[in-house]
């Protein structure tokens, strides 16, 4: 949807009606955008960890008896780490259409908004 109009919304001399909007800062575009909100991740490898701990409880925490479960846990951990790295690289390279906020801010500082005329 297009930007809502500002006509007759602010308290100005030419405006007969009472103001609709009362902004506390001047309505001028800033030369930066806000940071991306980090999405809430959830814990990975919970099932492998619980399987391994059940095995430990049965075998008095001996590692030789639980080799397979421990190996599965390590594999899950390395896979989760690799996935996290890929995701962070993807975020830094391209943000599904637009640039990441840091690169956008750099671009905006190179071509800043001109609130003045001259």
């Amino acid at each position, binding site marked *: 949807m297009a930007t809502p109009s500002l006509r007759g919304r602010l308290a100005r001399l030419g405006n007969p009606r009472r103001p609709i909007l009362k902004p506390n800062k001047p309505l001028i575009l800033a030369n930066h955008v806000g940071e991306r909100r980090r999405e809430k*991740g959830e*814990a990975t*490898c919970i099932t492998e960890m619980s399987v*391994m*701990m059940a095995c430990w*409880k049965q075998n008095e925490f001996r590692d030789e008896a639980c080799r397979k479960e421990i190996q599965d846990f390590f594999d899950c951990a390395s896979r989760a780490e690799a996935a*996290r790295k890929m995701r962070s690289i993807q975020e830094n390279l391209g943000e599904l259409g637009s640039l990441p906020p840091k690169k956008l801010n750099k671009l905006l500082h190179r071509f800043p908004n001109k609130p003045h005329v001259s």
Partner: protein
Amino acid sequence: MAAPAVKAARGWSGSALGVRIAVFRFPGLTQVRWSRYGPEYKDPQTDKEYYRKSLAEQTEEEKYERELKKTQLIKAAPATKTSSVFEDPVISKFTNMMMKGGNKVLARSLMTQTLEAVKRKQFEKYHAASAEEQATIERNPYTIFHQALKNCEPVIGLVPILKGGHFYQVPVPLADRRRRFLAMKWMITECREKKHRRVLMPEKLSQELLEAFHNQGPVIKRKHDMHKMAEANRALAHYRWW
């Protein structure tokens, strides 16, 4: 030659080539550990097998890397990194962790004395044992060292996470290097603190290494304590967000 070409490209008169000028990153923080090499410097390759490969055995990437190395800038290898057959990265790391105040000579001598003590003890056992037992006794101190440290590595670690104003110890999977570091750290701390003042470090370390090799001893107990705490706190695993 690479060096004059790079200097001409850079065009700086004062500083030497590739060396970074000291730069303040943040007003409150000073860097205490920094390298004088720029990002274009690559790490040296000290592996002799890499250079002995004939042209037919090399893959495309290796051929490309060899060509690249002819013009790239390479850092100087540190004094402890050699292409000798006797060099062991685990032993080097352990020696560095044992070192105090930069006294590498002392740390290295302690390390060699430890390995010698381990070997002597195992040989005594070997000569005193019967024929069937002799096959089971391991005499190579390096294999004993590696196996002992591997037995001491924890599988899962605990991390304090702040939730609702309290710190909870949450079980978390550890990276390989963190596990190796913890094993070595526990071994060194145990040997430094829990020994009599007249007992020397090689003696105590060799004893602890042999116990860890057989999955006994205080370092293994500490690893099991960590596992038990993690098992007790397994309900808190959902406090992780990674």
